[in-house]
């Protein structure tokens, strides 16, 4: 029979796969599953997922979380309104004054680097970008060829 017709090919394959028996599962599968069920069952409720927690524990957890959030917000508000906070902030700023020096140094370096970059001829910039793109494309091509040669099943 010449099968140049897609429908016949489909029927042929369907006929080939119809009614074939399942493969036998590995002998280890059943023991693995039972062991995992036992392991999970042995975990205390608080180490299981939230959906498995007792209802009382779930509500308690929600209530405690809400209370903790409320206390945290109240504490932050109190702290920000306290007169001593301003003084403490000044003290912290003095301790980290060196950060300002570092910022000034970085700005100077960036300014100088910008000047150097702007002095480079445009042709050199485009040339460098083109070489970089070429290297990247070559890397992708070599990677694809290596994958197809050594890993991909064709």
């Amino acid at each position, binding site marked *: *029979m010449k099968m140049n017709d*897609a429908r016949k*090919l489909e029927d042929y*394959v369907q006929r080939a796969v119809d009614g074939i028996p*399942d493969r036998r599962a590995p002998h280890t599968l059943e023991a693995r*599953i039972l062991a995992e069920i036992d392991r999970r*069952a042995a975990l205390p409720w608080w180490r299981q997922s939230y*959906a498995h927690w007792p209802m009382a524990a779930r509500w308690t957890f929600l209530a405690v979380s809400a209370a903790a959030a409320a206390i945290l917000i109240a504490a932050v508000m109190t702290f920000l309104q306290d007169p001593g906070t301003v003084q403490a902030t000044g003290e912290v700023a003095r301790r980290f004054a060196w950060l300002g020096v570092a910022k000034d140094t970085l700005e100077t370096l960036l300014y100088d680097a910008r000047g150097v970059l702007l002095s480079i001829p445009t042709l050199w910039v485009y040339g460098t970008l083109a070489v970089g793109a070429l290297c990247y494309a070559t890397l992708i091509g070599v990677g*694809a060829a290596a*994958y197809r040669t050594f890993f991909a099943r064709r």
Partner: protein
Amino acid sequence: MNDAPPVQSEPTGVSPAADFTTFMRQYQNMVFSTAARLVNDDAAAEDISQETFLKAYEHFDMLAASPSAGGWLKTVATRLGLNHLQRYRRRWSFFSEMGRSGSDGETDRPDVEFAAPETFFEGLDAAERGARVHDALAKLPDHQRVPLVLFHFEDMPYDEIARQLGVSLSKVKTDILRGRAALAKMLNASTPLST
């Protein structure tokens, strides 16, 4: 896809029920086969089977007496198998599918011509035919085997396969057609053993 009801069982502190073991023995070959055909890796298929039965254990109250338990298991195993493939595919799809023929926009009906002898079906019992089909499937590339398995073994329509795999309908049809041709050719080549 998984529209099962929420967890109701409380397995803590009890051993797996004997009827779950019976349930597992009844379906484990089917679940393992479903996963193995999809992922083409026995170790991964065993992991997927384990995950499937662990989910089944959580819903065992509902599944124990359900006539559609087999379908539920098959659906979950298929979904987990596809998830496994998607995870793998994300890492390699760029290299594996770059410039591959049969991608979007190509013809829906590539020219397939193959002489299929009826002798493949002669003198072969179902087990032997199954072994040959399995061997041939294992040799197909993922992008042909997966949609082919979903269509012919899981009875999934083309558009659903395209949706599940996140590819176009035309690519699914082309890949399945080419997969069928390759599979038929391999089955044909394996025929001389009989009669």
